[in-house]
């Protein structure tokens, strides 16, 4: 398996000129392994779609280079690139049938008629569209249109498959089942894929690795677990899942991998991957709502007042006010725990294994 099958090197895209200049993609570096599915995840306007369009060839980078399987394709026109794209709105040709849509690429490449028929039938079976050959796109459901679009791209056996928010036009239920199916097909075919989405759940369930982008820059690259458990900055922690942020300072450097932090007079030991901190540094302590426990008020802990209680059956969500800041706490299986009510004073217990520290940043609310 090749480690650097798709390589983006210092990719920059600037739109407009003068006053209206927008840096859509800012020095993006990425290496995608053969057979890997990588997701570009970020809020709208973060540059993920622009990045994808540069890989497909519809946008030319302002600077930087793109390599696929060792070959530079930075300025290769889209019709000569070994990539195919699944469009957000599917872009099915309305004047062609399902079969004609799927066979289109092979026809363009002047494959033999017999060859086209065999490969089209195979791919139609693979995506589960058997029997719909002669329908027009307008006669298909959203999910079926999506599969035609996928089949039309897969049949070309591209070196890299690009997917531009392919599930955003489906309803919530279809989205879940279709994304599992896309993942299965992708793994069965073993095709290198770049997937753009703004839906973090989609990114977490689908991807081998996730690339978090914001304002044109890559914030973090990692497996879904890494991104969730060890976000590198405030943006990533806040964007992925729910997170509580507590301000504090570094109290002690215990070792290369462990520091002690001081949060409102209470000290916690935190594991870190690499030590870039020194004593006295301001930090943000990140703790997920499910890693906090509540106890009746006691000394030597962080104390607060319950300001909101939401009962969700399998979970209980509390909001606790601590010095005008709010901390969200999720208690799973609430039957096993004491139930608190609004106005009660409590101590919050932070589980040390789940703590994570990042350098201090202004918290935006």
């Amino acid at each position, binding site marked *: 398996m090749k480690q650097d099958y798709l390589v983006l090197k210092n990719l920059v895209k600037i739109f407009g000129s003068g006053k209206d200049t927008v840096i859509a993609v800012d020095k993006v570096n990425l290496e995608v392994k053969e057979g890997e599915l990588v997701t570009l995840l970020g809020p709208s306007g973060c540059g993920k779609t622009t990045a994808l369009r540069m890989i497909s060839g*519809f946008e030319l980078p302002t600077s930087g280079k793109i390599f696929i399987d060792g070959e530079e394709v930075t300025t290769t*026109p889209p*019709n000569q690139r070994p*990539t195919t794209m699944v469009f957000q709105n599917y*872009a*099915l*040709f*309305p004047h062609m049938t399902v079969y004609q849509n799927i066979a289109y690429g092979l026809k363009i*490449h002047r494959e033999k008629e017999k060859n086209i028929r065999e490969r089209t039938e195979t791919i139609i079976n693979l995506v589960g569209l058997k029997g719909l050959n002669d329908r027009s796109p307008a006669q298909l459901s959203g999910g079926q249109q999506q599969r035609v679009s996928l089949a039309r791209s897969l049949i070309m056996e591209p070196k890299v498959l690009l997917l531009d928010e392919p599930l955003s036009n489906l309803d919530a239920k279809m989205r879940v089942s279709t994304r599992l199916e896309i993942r299965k097909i992708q793994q069965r075919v073993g095709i290198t894929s770049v997937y753009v989405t703004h839906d973090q759940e989609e990114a977490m369930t689908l991807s081998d690795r996730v690339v978090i982008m914001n304002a044109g820059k890559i914030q973090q690259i990692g497996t879904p677990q890494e991104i969730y458990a060890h976000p590198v900055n405030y943006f990533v922690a806040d964007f992925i899942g729910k997170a509580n942020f507590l301000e504090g300072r570094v109290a002690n450097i215990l070792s290369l991998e462990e520091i002690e932090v001081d949060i409102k007079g209470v000290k916690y030991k935190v594991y870190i991957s690499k030590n870039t901190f020194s004593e006295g540094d301001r930090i943000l302590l990140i703790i997920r709502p499910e890693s906090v426990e509540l106890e009746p008020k006691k000394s030597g802990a962080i104390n607060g007042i319950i300001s909101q209680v939401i009962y969700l059956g399998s979970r209980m969500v509390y909001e606790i006010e601590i010095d005008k800041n709010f901390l969200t706490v999720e208690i799973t299986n609430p039957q096993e725990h004491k139930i608190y009510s609004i106005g009660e004073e409590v101590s919050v217990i932070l589980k040390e294994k789940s703590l994570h520290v990042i350098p201090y940043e202004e918290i935006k609310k």
Partner: protein
Amino acid sequence: MNSSKRKIQEITGNLRLIWKEPLLFVSILAIFYCLIVFVVFPIFQVFKTSLIIDRQLNFSNYSAIFSKRYYYQPFFNSMLLGIYTATIGTIIGFIFAYALTRTPMPFKNFFRITATFPIISPPFVVALSAILLFGRAGSLNPFITKIIGDYTIYGLGGLILVETIAYAPTAFLVLYGILQAIDPSLEEASMDLGASRVKVFSTITLPLSTPGIASAWLLVFIQSLADFGNPMVISGNYRVLSVQAYLQITGMYDLSRGSTLAILLFIPTIVAFFLQKYWVSRKSYVTVTGKPTGATIKQLEWYIKLPVYTCCIIFTGIVFLFYGTIVHGSFQTLWGVNPTLTLKHYVEMYQVGKDYLIDSLVLSAVATPIAGIIGIFISFLVIRKKFIGRGVMEFISILTFAVPGTVVGIGYILAFNQKTVLLPFIMTGTAWIIIILLVFRNMPVGIRAGIAALQQIDPSIEEASTDLGADSNTTFRRITLPMIAPAFFSGLAYNFVKAMTCISAVIFVVSGKWNLITVAILGFVDNSRYAQAAAMCNLLIVIVLIALGIIQLIVNRIGKGVRTVDIIG
């Protein structure tokens, strides 16, 4: 059985609803009366006059026409002219639309405005300019003669040239809408799958725009058939139906022959119109896919840019050349002989044409608001209300889009020169016949504007008003009208433009007492006083531009972001 019973119930239900809103009921009746008297009746009269001789059904007019070359030639001439104009005009319109929607051509706004300018200009300006440029004393005459030898601008060639310039903009507007609506991601998908630029065009863009191309072709064909001003000026010995019908009636006083020629003009036009309306537009693929992404292909090879840009530049250059010539010509002492600049043509034009100008302004100013209000009201009834005869009302109003002006004009003389049961006055020779003709001739613009605006407004907004206790009239006045006001005013603007520039129908109903500026221009041209004609054209264009400017200001103040009305057809 059951279904017919349900139908009866539905009808009685509707009747009861109408009964509860007497004002609505009365206005529906009034509109029907107007449509029947001023739209259907005149056309019916043309048919009747061509078919009935001495109170008996008689096809001799038609057999005469098909047996004498003198009579049937105009039919084939008109068709041939229509086919040429439609084909060339559609090609130019398509290239323009392609350039503006699919290429990074600079100065797009400039090209778009220039390309649509001929739509608002008086119809025979282009023909007049062609005479100044290529006529016997034309400034380009010696040059062209050197290249192709002896030629004459009067005839089929000249007609194709001027009608293409005049009507290619229509094709452009239709195709611009179509190409804009084709999702660019379809073309990207095709390219992504390996298609070259040429393949993308031949397998995706062209097939998807085929219905639009057919539409554009038919609309230009209709306009060319119905054109009166250009052939009147430049057709020479090439006889076309609209002009021949006019000459039969005003020159030979042969009403039945004239009517028969008008019917020959009416039938192909109406066939082409309904083909366009009901068959071609049904085949459109354009709305099938989801929301457009707005992204367009940006890199383009030179071998596509070069011919496309060249075509756009040449056409724009020709438009400038033709309109520039009108301006230039109006200031020259004697065209082709004495190029000293002078204002005397303007003075002469004003002395002779002052009354025409005032008549035109007064009559248009009266007719425009009436046409606007009736148009918007009909569109409201047709789109929003259920009543018996709604289908008929829709059909008649659609009919007014398509009927050639010549047919309407002849119909008006036949219908209103005597008292009838429907209308117990003689209108011929009065200002009213002109005003009413302008109203019902230009009403389609208001209807179009209204329909386009109403379709954008969610009916539930009006239902909410009714739900809160307002009746139909209050709802229309307080809710609907304010929301469609911008469309109404831009509709008014084009109404006024059309009223000021129309010729084909009104030329039959003008009188010594009430006359129009376009007729005056035609008079100048007839007497070969081209400079005065050019001066008057300029005046007319300036008036039209001022009117458009004023309305644009009003529209900008009332509502922003509301689509302006398309003025095709």
